[in-house]
């Protein structure tokens, strides 16, 4: 019997859901409201130099890749399953499209982090 790839995508979905539940709201608050608005954190927190240093640090690269990849796999997996709820037909093609988009975003993030260098 052919092995199912479901455990892989479910694990990525689960990991993304857990990461989003643990720090998602705080990430959005800091990067979307506090820092751009200069509220509780200074706007310089996301200056070019600081964010470049973050993206060049191995741990920073890991964190950025983990957040982008896991959030994408989590969200695309859930959105794929919502298609059925909305009466849209699902199948291997649509599943491949949704998981593929998350995979493409992950590869793009990895490539960008490589280009940014150390």
């Amino acid at each position, binding site marked *: 019997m052919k092995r199912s790839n479901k455990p892989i995508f479910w694990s990525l979905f*689960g990991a*993304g*859901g*857990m990461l*989003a*539940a*643990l*720090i*998602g*709201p*705080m*990430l*959005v*608050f*800091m*990067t*979307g*409201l506090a820092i*751009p*608005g200069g509220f509780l*954190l*200074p*706007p*310089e*927190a*996301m200056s*070019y130099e*600081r*964010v*470049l240093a973050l*993206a060049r640090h191995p741990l920073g690269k890991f964190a*950025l890749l983990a*957040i*982008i990849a896991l*959030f*994408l796999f*989590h*969200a*695309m997996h*859930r*959105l794929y*399953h*919502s298609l059925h*709820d909305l*009466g849209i037909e699902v199948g291997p093609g649509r599943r491949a499209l949704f998981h593929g988009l998350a995979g493409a*975003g992950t590869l*793009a*993030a990895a490539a*960008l*982090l490589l*280009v*940014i260098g150390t």
Partner: protein
Amino acid sequence: MAYLHTHVRPMQGWWRRNPFYRRYMLREVTALFVAAYAVELLVGLVRLAQGRAAYEAWRAALATPPALAFHALTLAAFLYHAWTWLEVMPKTMPFVTVRDHRVSDRAIVVAGVTASVIASIALFVAVRLVIAP
């Protein structure tokens, strides 16, 4: 094969019929915000790789009123998303037993919410310390 000519309840708008279904659909919609936030970070990486001018334009766009309003909405979506994730943890994780007693559903949810609050505060404090040691 012969089909029975019975009434088939239409599925159109099924989720509007019951508050439980409405909450379920609201939870599913929050996934759109999670995806949007990931794409936004990805665009930020593209702009960062393009250099200072491109990155500063992206950063300036984040500080505009529409972006701030969108992020307020995104924050609300993320909070609801996080709550629904932690709320179903007793159903999605294996049973946990301590000294032959199953840990109650309530204890699991409380532990999850506590872990989220601690992780979030730790992240905020870490960012503050990095910015202004």
